[in-house]
């Protein structure tokens, strides 16, 4: 693994909890690794597998989906569906040994600025440790 590897991580954040949590991390001036690019969606359930797969296959070294904690969904139950879809995708990746660790789902609430920073930093570290997504160099995808 090259030490100057800067991973490209895509983060889908739900508007109500996780994005607010990310904002809080920012306004609390917490240090967060710069590798994650945030994409705001209204609810974590908006994320379909295609979006995640597209990101992973077109070069993302990691994909983070963050939403409200179960029970906290602004739309009551969106995150439960998100969790099921995520579990399915993760299982597929596990079964095919397609580096399931590059995909993570985390619950981050609006008050959890610190947690947001931790989640992102930890995930960034893990991805850095894993090295570049091998798909990225595969001309056959």
């Amino acid at each position: 693994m090259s030490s100057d590897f800067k991973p490209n991580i895509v983060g889908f954040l739900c508007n109500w909890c996780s994005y607010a949590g990310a904002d809080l991390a920012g306004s609390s001036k917490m240090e967060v690794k710069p590798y994650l690019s945030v994409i705001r969606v209204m609810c974590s359930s908006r994320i379909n597998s295609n979006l995640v797969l597209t990101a992973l296959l077109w070069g993302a070294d990691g994909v983070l989906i963050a939403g409200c904690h179960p029970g906290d969904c602004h739309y009551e139950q969106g995150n439960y569906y998100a969790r099921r879809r995520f579990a399915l995708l993760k299982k597929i990746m596990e079964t095919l040994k397609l580096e399931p660790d590059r995909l993570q789902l985390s619950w981050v609430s609006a008050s959890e600025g610190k947690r947001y920073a931790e989640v992102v930093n930890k995930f960034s570290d893990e991805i850095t440790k894993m090295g570049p997504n091998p798909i990225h160099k595969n001309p056959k995808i």
Partner: protein
Amino acid sequence: MNGNIGVYVCECGPNIGEKIDIDKVLEAIASLPHVKVAKRFGLLCSNDGKKYLEDEMRKEELTHVVIAACSPRDHEQTFMTVAERAGLNPYLVQLVNIREQCAWMIPDKEAATEKAIKYIRAGISRVSLHQALTKKELEVCTDVLVIGGGISGIETALSLAGEDRKVFIVEKSEELGGKANKLSRLLPHQGSTLSLIQEKIDTLNKNAHIEVFTGSQVVDARGFLGNFEVVIQKGENAGEQEIKVGAVVVATGFDLFNPEENPAYGLGKVDNVVTSLQLEEMIKTEKVLLKNGKPPRSLALIHCVGRSEKGYCSKTCCLNILKNAHFLKDKIKDVDVTEIYRDLCLPNKADQDYYEEVEKKGVKFLRSNEIVNIKAEGGQISVEYKIDGKSKKISVDMAVLSPAMIPSADSKKIAEMLNLPLDPTGFIKEAHGMLEPIATPIEGVFAAGCSLGPKNIPESIIQAQATAGNIISSLIPGKKIKPEVKVSVVREEFCTGCQTCLSVCFYGAISFDPHKGVSVVNEAICRGCGSCVGSCPSGAIRSKHFTYTQLYREVLEALR
């Protein structure tokens, strides 16, 4: 796309200015396709900044604008308003968060700058796909349908009916008043319930703006806030009537747990075991008597009948039993009253005083964990109960069971008709258990009183009034409603009609058109979460302002 995109980077004083090399940012984005101008400014959210932006939008004839500044949660609305003032559709503005997400989080200036460029590129890429969205306006009907003529229903109607609002009450039984009719008196005033209800019913009957259907049922109701179509089955053989209303209030009340379900309670088997309602009836007629016509010398008032079975505390029984005990002590000389309770639940500020008053009257309180058996024994009734693992027993002349409140049979029927979810206890589920205690997930449909869960009369009244408050402020005569614009839409040619989207929508905003075989989103109901979009395999449903292509562009830029 043909367009002029303007990109404005806010320095936010030193917050962005010092942490991000803005000149480098501008250089990197100025030559991107369709970018007409890329400029920096000290503080865009200041009045000067807003003025500057407005002028720029006009001067440069911008079709799309990207503002790189702070979190959309802070100032998205601000800049949308600026755009609107400049004659640009507010949804053609994208606010890119480079302050919280870059400047404040990434101490390394170079990395922060790089990241900011990425975000702004994503913003540019995305904004070029934005569509101008306009708020639709819908006419509303201000009339209201109230299902259920109990205390909640009556109070709702009284609070709402007026010159410009008609209220229809549909009550399945032949008279208004609901369960409260059966109570002997209220608490802690010991006033007569009858007079209270009668007073309200009289006012109601005098009100020309309230139309009451007794002995009637709602057989169909569909629509959304401001526009419901309802069919009422009037009495027996009286035919159907269709009405239009703007809101529906479900006030179908509760039923009582039937103690006969558990033979241990002895109801129906053992003489002089009665329910609290039966006792109320006796109190009302002032004839608290045993089967043999004699007044009881001792009574056991048994709390929490059905609590274990149903899995919740009904909240109102403790006080109600205290009231009855109070009455018995007052009315029957030297009577021995024992309350067998689990936990005293007296959660209102005046309740404790009342409890102390009753205690002072000599009512005995026995705590038990479980009623083991109630049976006839030696001309009396023996109540066997358990406390801390030990069995105990008392003998009384009469045992009064206080059953738990359960959802009324009608609630379920009505809920099915209106597509309302029920919670695990079978009561109607609130739109949000904390913040929207009387709203249901279906906008325009409210619930009040015991249809939502056990409540006492004041709480039911409060809920009825709260319902009224919500309706008065959302259905204003002459004022149109503007539903959310960032909603989902179905592209009919691609929709296969699998109705997966229906199953994941919490708000019932999607229906199925059997003629076309496609799903239809009711934009007046949709709240724009996009859950349906996430669930549609073919991409036939798309969410405005968060389309797949828009997000995909963001992803691609993130990966650059």
